[in-house]
């Protein structure tokens, strides 16, 4: 809206959503853009749904919105949830191999949604499906699922590699920077560019 790009990060408490949002914010800042973020703390580490919003552009007023240009979801059900925020031009970057069933699903009261590909197609949304767990494991820690996804999301976000590097360096604690840089690179390389896809 008004030249502002909104990225919503969705996941489960403890998956590093807040760090991922901080990396994007620092990256946008490094790219010379104005940026605002918003997140809800408190319950965030207790396995609940977590939503963090990053908005950047030449001028940003509000830190929140109920729609997004890009959704980055660190879990499959949260990816389904994120579809609701996206318009037809939107992109969903989702860790499709990560499934964390909530209590109502464990108790058999509700069904875990399966086919994200079809749901995204029905929404007219571009889906970038990533096996982020495998990438994170390859990078050296399962906890880097969030940053592996960011690498994949870099395909649809307007930042240079240099800005991303500055964003990572600014937001990630030094002692886990290297493993996260590896995860980011693996995520970036896992995405086939859209042009290549269609040709």
């Amino acid at each position, binding site marked *: 809206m008004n030249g502002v790009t909104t990225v919503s990060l969705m996941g489960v408490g403890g998956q590093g959503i807040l760090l991922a949002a901080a990396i994007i914010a620092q990256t946008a800042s490094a790219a010379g853009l104005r940026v605002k973020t918003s997140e809800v703390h408190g319950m965030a*580490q*207790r396995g609940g749904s977590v939503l963090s919003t990053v908005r950047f552009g030449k001028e940003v007023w509000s830190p929140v919105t109920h729609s997004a240009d890009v959704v980055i979801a660190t879990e499959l059900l949260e990816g389904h949830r994120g579809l609701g925020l996206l318009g037809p031009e939107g992109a969903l970057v989702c860790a499709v191999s990560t499934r964390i069933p*909530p*209590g109502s699903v464990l*108790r*058999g009261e509700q069904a*875990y949604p399966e086919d994200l590909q079809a749901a995204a197609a029905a929404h007219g949304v571009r889906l970038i499906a990533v096996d982020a767990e495998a990438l994170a494991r390859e990078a050296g820690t399962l906890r880097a699922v969030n940053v592996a996804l960011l690498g994949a999301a870099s395909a649809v976000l307007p930042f240079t590699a240099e800005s991303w590097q500055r964003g990572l360096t600014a937001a990630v604690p030094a002692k886990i920077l290297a493993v996260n840089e590896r995860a980011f690179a693996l995520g970036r390389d896992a995405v086939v560019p859209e042009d290549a896809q269609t040709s």
Partner: protein
Amino acid sequence: MERTLFLSGNEALAHGAARAGATFACGYPGTPSTEILETIARLEGVHAEWCVNEKVALETAIGASRAGRRTLVTMKHVGLNVAADPLLTLTETGVTAGLVIVSADDPNMNSSQNEQDNRNYAKFAKIPMLEPSDSQEAYDFVAEAFALSEEFDTPVLLRPTTRVSHGRGQIVPGVPVAFEPREYVKDVTKHLMVPQWARLRTRFVIERLQRLRVRAEESPLNVLEAGTADFGIITSGISYVYAREAFPKAWFLKLGMSHPLPYRKVAQLYQHVSRVAVVEELDPFLEEQVRMLGLPVIGKEAIPANGELDQDVVFRALEPFLSRRPPRRRRAVFPPAPRLADLPPAPDLPVRPPVLCAGCKHRSVFTALRRHKVAAMGDIGCYMLGADPPLNALDSSLCMGAGIGIMAGFNKALGRKASVAVIGDSTFFHSGITALISAHYNEADGVVLILDNRTTAMTGHQGTPGSGVRPDLTEGPAIDLQKLCEGIGVRCVTVDATDYGGLKAALKAEIDAPGLSVFVAQAPCALMVRENLGAVIVDDERCNLCGLCLEIGCPAIAPGDDAVSIIDGCTGCGLCVAVCRRGALIPAGETS
């Protein structure tokens, strides 16, 4: 001739409460409120207790109201600041039996450090405010306040000021009200104010205020009194008697129920007179609302905004205005009803509320507690999550430290150990300790379960007086809960939360024992120690899907077709192993 009594306003409030069927009263002393509780303590059929402070008093009163007893709680104006935390959430939960909060204000600080106008709390909390102007009204208004409280599911503020509380006058006593105690029903949507339920109750509060305003328009407490002069006065409480004496020929809108303001009654007054003044002590509480209606009014430019009034002050203040030309514009513009935010659409996907972590060792306490038929008055923090299905182990969560006072009032009102309190160590230090002192002093029954993880976990592991850890991570002295509670004189047992069998037996002993005790369950926060003993292994042959392990609500156990399965996140804490009766769950280290 009817028997009349000659009572102070405070005595009249006490007699009025007893007559209205109140059987529980508590408070903290403070001029000019003190004699209310002292008087009621001498009346038959009412249990009265001093609590350790006004916050605990209100929480104790909430417990008694939940137990179905009409309850009066008393304090002075500054005391309501101390009780503001429970008050501002009590407005959401409402009451079971009537709950009336007397806030005795002290304009001119005859015996106070400030002269705050507590009518503002009625607006803040969106609850009714009744203001008696003499002893008879003090006596009568209490019954009205209890009726309003129950009809509208709201606490009611009743505000005498010094000259009402400590003035004396004749009372014609009323016929006693027959009040049948109400029954407590567990309802987490009403009593457990986690965001999910509190958001719905907030809507209820806003709608309730609209309905209360309609009632204020019809209430016999709000009277339009005809006069002969072309002059009207809007007033409430003690200010009414001053204005009545100063201007006997004026019209009056006398507001016994001063919040919410009956806008149409105000407008009616303007149909009869061309000049209107608001006479009120302290803040322009009514005046601002009258001006908001677009009506010209004489207010704080004439009537002093501080100190007490009397008839001379009122006369001298308003008399010069009566010779001036009356204002022309007299049509009220009523504010529209407020809009409520749109309800979020019903989720079409499974919702994911926060849960007690896999490996949270305090899950054992809820697992043991839910086997007992007692209400569990919870607190704020991670342990609210014990309320979620399938544990369903809590009845209530109001504000920090509130569970203990609510338990004390609930059990005292019912005369048995009908509830326990569940609180974390950090919230116990926050304000549970004062409530424990109060419960002990008043010999309340109960068990206070302190789930001691040595940190403020929900907000991100900040230090507490129990850990000694400071914000800069230096360490100060760590306070020993066991010694602290024993120092108060309360029996205290400390158990290891990881030993489910021992914990279960110890908890049963405490719930079965008479009196009050503290039960400290110790184990560090699973997120801090991140201990992983290896995932539990399921013996598919032995598992018969009885569901016992699923009832502990661990997010790392899922039911399957033939047996349960252990999924990501298991830390091997072993609670599921301990509840399994068939030996189907095996700790990682014990497979052979």
